[in-house]
């Protein structure tokens, strides 16, 4: 089995990394999101590789469909879901100190 660029989940991981880093959140939360996200993306990518291996043995046309189109979309959907779950998990920002109190 040869896992080429585009099937190793690296691009999806980079997109998730960019999305997490770009959003204003504490670094601790970003690092937790990145760690969980990399595990989620690469974990699903292993499922992709295993499923493609068996699909390839069963039916080449189905393998081509899953390989070129369906799994690509599913991996990016995984990135989107992980990002949304991370956003939902983020704590609300602390309220800024009142202006009057800060002036005194």
């Amino acid at each position, binding site marked *: 089995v040869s896992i080429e*660029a*585009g099937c190793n989940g690296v*691009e*999806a991981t980079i*997109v998730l990394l960019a999305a997490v880093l770009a*959003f*204003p*959140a504490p670094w601790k939360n970003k690092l937790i999101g990145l760690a969980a996200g990399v595990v989620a993306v690469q974990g699903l990518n292993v499922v992709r590789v295993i499923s493609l291996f068996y699909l390839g043995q069963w039916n080449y046309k189905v393998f081509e469909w899953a390989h*070129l*189109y*369906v799994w*690509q*979309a*599913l*991996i*990016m*959907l995984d*990135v*989107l*879901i992980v990002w*949304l*779950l991370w*956003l*939902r998990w*983020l*704590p*609300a*920002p602390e309220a800024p100190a009142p202006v009057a109190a800060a002036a005194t």
Partner: protein
Amino acid sequence: LKLPTPVNPVWAFALRVFAWMVPAFAAWYYVAPWHSRLAGTIARPMIDFYAPGLVTAVEYSERAIVFVTSVKVHAGGGNLALLLPEVNPLIYTYGLALVLALLLASHARWWKLIVGALVLLPFQAWGITFDLVSQIGIRMTGDVAVQAGIVGWRREFAALGFQLGSLIFPVLAPVIAWAALERARISALAGGAFRKRAESSEGSTP
């Protein structure tokens, strides 16, 4: 009395997208011959701009685009033939199914489906363009790249363009298009903390 915890709306959304992907992929594959022609038509001026005079005609089969080029190659027996590279446009257009599934799962208005499909076309044309350019400029041996004028920075950029067009744009463009069209949905899915952080970030921008 402890009430059951409501389903996380993100998971519910994911299930709806998953369910919509089946008819969306079927619809995309059904319209692929026409949709690919549209993407190929937009790709033609891009190719002409990048490598002027390279393509002299474009032929469309059911789910493939064949480019008639001005590049001559040895065809055996001392004969020369025109190079006719073929591109599978479906590799670059399946994002249509993804954007439709995302929008339908968000209960988006019908006009957003059309806008979402149209917004993706330039990115799909980009993929088709750089598939052809990288085939001729990078993957083929001999003097093919020199004949086509894909040398120097054009050859280097062809590699970058192909990476973007094949690995990034097909999956990222549909998600960005959905996010731009359904900002309120993202806000609802991500929750109150997201809204506060986004607002405080916008407020702190100079």
